[in-house]
């Protein structure tokens, strides 16, 4: 039973264009959502988060949108750069007050072509 789903295993985008990565979740009780980025042979690194009480959070080139009615969130990267090429994981947390446990999606491999 996958509570956090990333249905696109990969995405290819031209440098300078917008990258949109999508994530769906099933449990409406999650308190917050996060995006992590992972390069090969490295651990995931935190990118951006959003509380369930908000619908948008922006940090530089990265914006996360949350649509609670659709149980959907997306990460927008604009403009995309070759250094953004990595696997992006969506994660959710805070269910039942458990701030310690994150539930990750399966990841989307983003390739930004120069």
């Amino acid at each position, binding site marked *: 039973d996958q509570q956090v789903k990333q249905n696109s295993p990969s995405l290819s985008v031209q440098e300078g264009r917008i990258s949109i990565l999508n994530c769906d979740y099933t449990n409406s009780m999650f308190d917050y959502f996060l995006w992590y980025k992972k390069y090969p042979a490295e651990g995931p690194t935190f990118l951006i988060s959003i509380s369930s009480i908000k619908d948008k959070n922006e940090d530089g080139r990265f914006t996360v949108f949350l649509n609670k009615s659709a149980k959907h969130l997306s990460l927008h990267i604009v403009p995309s750069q070759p250094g953004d090429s990595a696997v992006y994981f969506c994660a959710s947390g805070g269910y039942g007050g458990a701030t310690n*446990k994150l539930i990750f*999606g399966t990841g989307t491999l983003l390739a930004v072509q120069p």
Partner: protein
Amino acid sequence: GAGVSQTPSNKVTEKGKYVELRCDPISGHTALYWYRQSLGQGPEFLIYFQGTGAADDSGLPNDRFFAVRPEGSVSTLKIQRTERGDSAVYLCASSLGTSGIGGELFFGEGSRLTVL
């Protein structure tokens, strides 16, 4: 170093053997987590420590898995009677605490375990 350190980076073992994986968190981080990432999957929660105690071990798959953090810093994940299905990258993460939105975990590079 400044980041989360995990050793060994790679471990190959035979089915039935015992394995220990070590994690040295960022200095001052009271919370420590173990996750497991199997091929093609996202990280999966195993266990969480706050200080020396295991505050949540609900992700440990069975009693072959055990983790300790005796002095509230370094942690060891122990796997007994390894099985081929235990093959994965074991990720350790630490954080300052679990207040507020939480979630900003600092991950190590992982220990890749291969059980033959």
